[in-house]
């Protein structure tokens, strides 16, 4: 990849709460905020820290399936509802399934690099509690290959794809230890989420999370190798962040110490119609991380915290191996040794990740960037971890579909 021609920063991040089962204020039969409300809350949360819409040149919105969840298209035109000063400015909606948020980040980064913008309002959003999970599964299955895969697929299409990956992993590396690692992953996710008040599992009070995580999968009502605790929940949420040049930071009145610098990024696409060559590997994620690290010019030894795409416990485990912290087949040991926990050398998903914080599919990539910005700039409150000078960088990996659309970003606190 060509070396970036100018420095790119992110700042002024904002996450709404992740609303869905588990949150006390969630009730399936009560009226809830709509798509517009989430976009506006996240967008205004960013603009309040960036001097308002007048300082923004452009808007990008990442979303997966509002056309089906909310019967709403043309989302780019919802960006001007955030602030009247955004009217008549260029706005774009991008979609790459659960990688939509990551694509929104790279679309904004590219606009800053192309010097067509110095400040881009970047939003990711998904509002999914409009339908029951069994119908939501149909909608989310759109991240797979509809004509080639859906008919033969499972009622819970994506959980089943990753259940198959888990099954293959069990076969190759052993079931018992792997399931215990899943349960530990679940516990870490919820324990982190309990510290972050926007997280969906913030109100979770379960005493023995690992026992819950070890619940035997029930293939009759769900899938073969995963239980519901292995899965991220159905979430309504939005996230927003400003993607800026140095001039953009000045214009918005944001000091560098309140910003992170994008050191490198990797955006990789696989063929939707081709199944993974090895179900026990996230090859596309591996390639995206490699590109991002190469572009940043650093190794994993500089990474102090990670936001990985744990839509399922198995994807969290496979992410560790794809990133390279553990070799193939060693992810379970890595988790069970506590290395991904917030006390570990490189804490993963410090606000809960997709399983703990929530997974507003098309918004997750932006949410990850906001979490990392909060963590690196010391704004993480109760869920803050220490970022040591030896490991000053952070990594986010956002995956769309069955490891098809992947964006990895490497960050460091700006100086």
């Amino acid at each position, binding site marked *: 990849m060509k070396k970036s021609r100018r420095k790119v920063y992110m700042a002024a991040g904002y996450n709404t709460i992740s609303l869905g089962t588990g949150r006390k204020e969630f009730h399936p039969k009560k009226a809830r905020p709509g798509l517009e409300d989430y976009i506006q809350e996240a967008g205004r949360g960013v603009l309040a820290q960036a001097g308002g819409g007048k300082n923004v040149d452009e808007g990008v919105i990442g979303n997966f399936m509002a056309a089906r969840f909310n019967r709403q298209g043309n989302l780019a035109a919802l960006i001007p509802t955030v602030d009247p000063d955004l009217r008549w400015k260029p706005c774009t909606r991008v979609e790459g399934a659960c990688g939509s948020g990551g694509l929104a980040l790279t679309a904004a980064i590219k606009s800053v690099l192309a010097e067509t913008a110095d400040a881009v309002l970047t939003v990711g959003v998904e509002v999914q509690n409009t339908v*029951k999970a*069994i*119908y939501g*599964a*149909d909608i989310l*299955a759109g991240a797979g290959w*509809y004509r080639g895969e*859906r*008919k*033969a697929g*499972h*009622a*819970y299409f994506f959980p089943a794809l990753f259940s198959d990956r888990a099954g293959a992993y069990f076969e190759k590396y052993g079931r018992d230890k792997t399931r215990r690692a899943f349960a530990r992953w679940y516990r870490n996710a919820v324990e982190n989420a309990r510290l972050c008040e926007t997280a969906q599992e913030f109100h979770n009070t379960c005493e023995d999370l690992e026992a819950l995580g070890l619940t035997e999968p029930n*293939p*009759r*009502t*769900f899938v073969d190798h995963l239980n519901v605790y292995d899965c991220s929940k159905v979430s309504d949420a939005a996230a927003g962040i400003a993607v800026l040049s140095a001039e953009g930071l000045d214009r918005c009145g944001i000091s560098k110490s309140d910003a992170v610098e994008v050191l490198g990024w990797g955006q990789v696409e696989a063929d939707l119609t081709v199944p993974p060559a090895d179900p026990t590997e996230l090859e596309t994620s591996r390639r995206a991380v490699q590109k991002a690290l190469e572009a940043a010019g650093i190794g994993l030894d500089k990474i102090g915290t990670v936001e990985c795409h744990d839509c399922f416990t198995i994807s969290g485990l496979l992410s560790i191996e794809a990133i390279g912290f553990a070799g193939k087949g060693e992810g379970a040991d890595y988790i069970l040794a506590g290395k991904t926990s917030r006390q570990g050398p490189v804490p993963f998903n410090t606000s809960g990740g997709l399983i703990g914080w929530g997974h507003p599919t098309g918004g997750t990539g932006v949410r990850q960037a906001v979490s990392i910005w909060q963590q690196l700039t010391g704004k993480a409150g109760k869920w803050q971890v220490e970022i040591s000078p030896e490991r000053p960088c952070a990594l986010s990996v956002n995956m769309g579909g069955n490891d098809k659309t992947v964006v990895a970003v490497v960050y460091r606190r700006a100086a």
Partner: protein
Amino acid sequence: MNYVERLEKVAVLGAAGKMGSGIVLLTALEMADLSLEPGNRSRDFALYAVDISEPALAGLLKYLRDQVRRAAEKKTVWLRSVYADRSDLVENEEMIGQYIADVLAVVRPATRLEAAYGAGLVFEATNENPDLKVKLLGQIRAQNKKDAWFLTNTSSIPIHELDEKAGLGGRLIGFHFYNPPAVQKLVEVIRAKSTLPELAEFAAQYAKKLRKTVVPSNDVAGFIGNGHFMRDALHGIAEVERLAPEFGFVDAVYMVNKVSQDFLIRPMGIFQLVDYVGLDICQCILKVMSDRSVGADLRSPLLDRLVSSGAMGGQFADGSQKDGFLKYEKGRPAGVYDPEAKAYVPFADVGPRCDERLGPLPASGKPWKSVIQTVDRPAYLQGYFRDLRATTTMGADLAKRYGRKAKEVGLGLVKDGVAQKEDDVNTVMLTGFYHAYGPVNAYFDE
């Protein structure tokens, strides 16, 4: 006829009633599932939903559409395999829609009894009126061309009596669902001496396919469920009559209802339950039982008086609760009937003084809903009832009297040969009435 053939043509009598609609739902689901098996696709499964009320039948179809959707949403994993060969059905939503259509296609609403003449199985769920049941069953027996088997949902009338009077020659078995049939796990199966063994086998298989818990009851009027419930309710009424001179009728009803719900950890207070079942239905059941003299003094003049004054309970066509002993707002009890004034007194006017009289629940008290979700329920109940026994408030004393009476009634059912064993009584109350514990226990022993 084997199991599948028996279920190919079914008639449900009283199909749009409270019990009938649930029976139609469960049976239509079973029939549709059979029709989707590869070997059965050429068969025409038909459930004749017979009811005299056309508007009620229209309501039945709406109820079925909603309930079948719920059922389909829970078994979509299976539906995807069932419809695997249907290239036009790809998404869950499409398959769920197809399944709803397939189930509803089985159901053929009818207002005339003739619809039952071609049925191989007739499920009777009409009013709890012996003469009506005998008449309908006898008429179908005379006209039916298939030597139909009969299931009756009677909750109190002896099976041998219906069999003899309708001339069914052993082709009848009691198959008593609990309300609502789609939710309550229990089916009381009552086999008369004359009941054909093949019919008993069929009933067992059918209950199993419906995933119901079966408790056998002996063929004595009231069976186990009403044998317990009626006496339990009469105890509540007797308590009201005992307390009324001192505290007034309204206060007495409020207090006994509250004690039987909160202090005894039941899903409803006794008078809410009587309202739910319907005061008129309770009256019918008591009459059936007392006419067959299965117990002394199974009558309640108070109940008769309330029914004649129009406080009836039961449900409206949309399922909402009618006023009876209690008045309901948004489905929740909100007032007590005052027979003198023929008006309801709001809870707000009686509640505070009665609650003070009763005293607080023991500190370990929890609502029924939270208790049934408690992991180690027996340990919790041991602790709670130990605390209750040690409490000497009026509420605790009423609760202890109630608990002891419930146990006495339970043991009486075994002694009188209605239930085969104590466990059966407990299972009925746990799975048919959703109690948190069975009445035959040691919680109230002194």
